[in-house]
């Protein structure tokens, strides 16, 4: 039985929102700088200008505005490419400088969390190779994937606390000819979106006041190295991460609460590939149906790869069982881009999504028929080899 929302609200009202006076965890960044002072590694500074945001226990985290090196996500680029495209589009729309590298690998944590065919040393070396590549470029790493972000924070803790691991990975970096460098902050793209939300609102062209949104906070964003995630006393009384929700509010749409917000999406890594019965059941029974019953949203927004895929794709089979499904799913980056007038197919690439999204577009005031016709014309030109690729100029034509 769902927990009545009034109970949650009453508890929230009664709660002391101030949190502990002293953070219960160490500030790992101090240790990172201590190691720099000892000559153990370099620290890549967050470039100016940056925006200060508040993390779980009240510390300030620096979010770079520009000169970002984009550590892309396998699942976003591979299966929901409108996700990565929208992140880049938002940056370009603000006229900011960025680097989309080819000398980047994924965090390879699929082989850590799913199959365990990796180990601590390898994972740390992969992270530090990527950080080294970012440092060499002069751009600051911004991590698109929630898992890579959470995992790199675990790796940072492990490296800080183990001289042996540092030695192993330093040896590897030396062999690769890569600098041994730790970024001053580990930054997720959704933190940048959160930090820039008022800039998006200023450039918004759609009225979203009629759009109801449920938010799924990504597990690997706020459950791994929890103290480093963004919290804001003005969002859920500081009791849940503020990313995504604060963006929805800034864009004038309505965040709707539901009781299973803490639950994961059901992705499970190996489950989505080889035990999908679990994934489908969890995504529909514990997330989508609960959202439908308690909040009846127009769209589910989240900020990680696996969550978009799982919550979106799992709804198809559930229809055969007459489950209460049928809510479109996308990232807050795609939603913000649409709000700012991005093309739903050239930029948000919604044709890669599964659950019916067109009624949402209509409600947002987007003429999807016309936009699809334009995109089909693009495809014809690409087919006829008039053009090899769609360009950024085409995207905004």
């Amino acid at each position, binding site marked *: 039985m769902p927990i009545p929302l009034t109970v949650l609200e009453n508890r929230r009202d009664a709660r002391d929102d101030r949190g502990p006076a002293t953070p219960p965890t160490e500030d790992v960044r101090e240790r990172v700088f201590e190691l720099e002072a000892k000559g153990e590694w370099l620290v890549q500074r967050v470039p100016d200008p940056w925006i200060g945001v508040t993390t779980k226990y009240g510390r300030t985290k620096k979010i770079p505005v520009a000169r970002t090196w984009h550590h892309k996500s396998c699942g976003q680029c591979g299966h929901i490419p409108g996700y990565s495209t929208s992140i880049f589009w938002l940056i370009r729309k603000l006229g900011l400088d960025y680097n989309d590298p080819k000398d980047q690998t994924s965090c390879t944590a699929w*082989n850590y969390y799913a199959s365990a065919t990796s180990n601590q040393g390898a994972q740390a070396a992969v992270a530090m190779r990527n950080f080294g590549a970012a440092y060499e470029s002069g751009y600051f790493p911004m991590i698109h994937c929630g898992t890579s972000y959470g995992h790199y924070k675990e790796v940072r803790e492990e490296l800080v606390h183990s001289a042996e691991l540092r030695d192993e990975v330093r040896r590897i970096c030396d062999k690769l000819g890569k600098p041994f460098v730790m970024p001053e902050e580990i930054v997720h793209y959704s933190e940048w979106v959160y930090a820039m939300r008022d800039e998006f609102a200023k450039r918004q062209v759609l009225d979203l006041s009629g759009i109801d949104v449920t938010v799924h906070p990504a597990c690997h964003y706020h459950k791994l190295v929890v103290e480093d995630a963004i919290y804001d006393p003005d969002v859920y009384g500081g009791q849940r991460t503020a990313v995504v929700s604060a963006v929805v509010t800034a864009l004038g749409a309505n965040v709707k609460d539901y009781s299973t917000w803490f639950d994961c999406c059901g992705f499970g890594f190996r489950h989505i590939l080889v035990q999908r019965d679990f994934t489908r059941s969890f995504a529909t029974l514990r997330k989508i149906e609960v959202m439908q019953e308690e909040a009846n949203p127009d769209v589910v927004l989240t900020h990680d790869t696996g969550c978009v895929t799982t919550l979106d794709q799992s709804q198809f089979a559930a229809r055969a069982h007459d489950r209460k499904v049928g809510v479109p799913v996308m990232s807050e980056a795609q939603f913000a881009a649409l709000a700012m007038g991005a093309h739903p197919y050239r930029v948000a690439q919604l044709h890669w999504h599964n659950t019916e999204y067109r009624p949402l577009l209509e409600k947002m005031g987007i003429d999807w028929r016309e936009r699809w016709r334009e995109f089909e014309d693009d495809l014809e030109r690409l087919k006829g080899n008039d053009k090899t690729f769609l360009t950024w100029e085409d995207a905004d034509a």
Partner: protein
Amino acid sequence: MALQARYEDVPLETKQHLFDQVKADARFDSYLYGCYECGICVAACPSARFYDFSPRKIAQAAGRQDLPMFYEQLNDDIWNCSQCFSCTRCPRGNNPGGLITIMREVAINNGLSSAKHALEGYGRVVYKIMSTGTQVSPDMLQPNAFPDWGPHVQEISDNLELWRRALPPDTLHTTSTAWEVDDRTLTELYLIWHMTGVLDMIKSVDMGLHMILNDVMEELLDEAGYTAD
């Protein structure tokens, strides 16, 4: 069959040996501080809702060094975990999901048949990550791989090359990898797999996969003038 009875024949020394490997892992001490048996981790755990599985029992077995229970979990439970880390809600500061990460690595390193079984059908994913540095490639979207995702997958697969060309970012025009990774970067990645013993891990669970990976990697490493030692 009574709990743990199916592993009665496995000598206690074997179970102890495997447990010792888990305990010796550098991450172990920061993943387990004791356990109140409060069950908060179970309430938060998605896998506990759909499987006979409990992160509380994982923490308990590790804390008490209950070797029969540990061994049963090593074979029958750990692959059910979703690695979501909802269990880090633990008021004691435990990370049962992290304990499971370590247990899985020990299961792989020791070539347990349950680990081999868990990875059946998974070899192509391991291969993709290790050989290309990315996973979830666009060409994985095949209807026979995702029949439960509906006809939409067929549509993507039919239009794959064209739809990838219709992406504005230059790095995304790929179909067999999620984005374009340059050769030098792949060479560096292969060197990491060699130097950290990951290739040896693969050898213990899948000889065929190990051979294929070795072939792919050695060529590129040789060309780049690296010796993997």
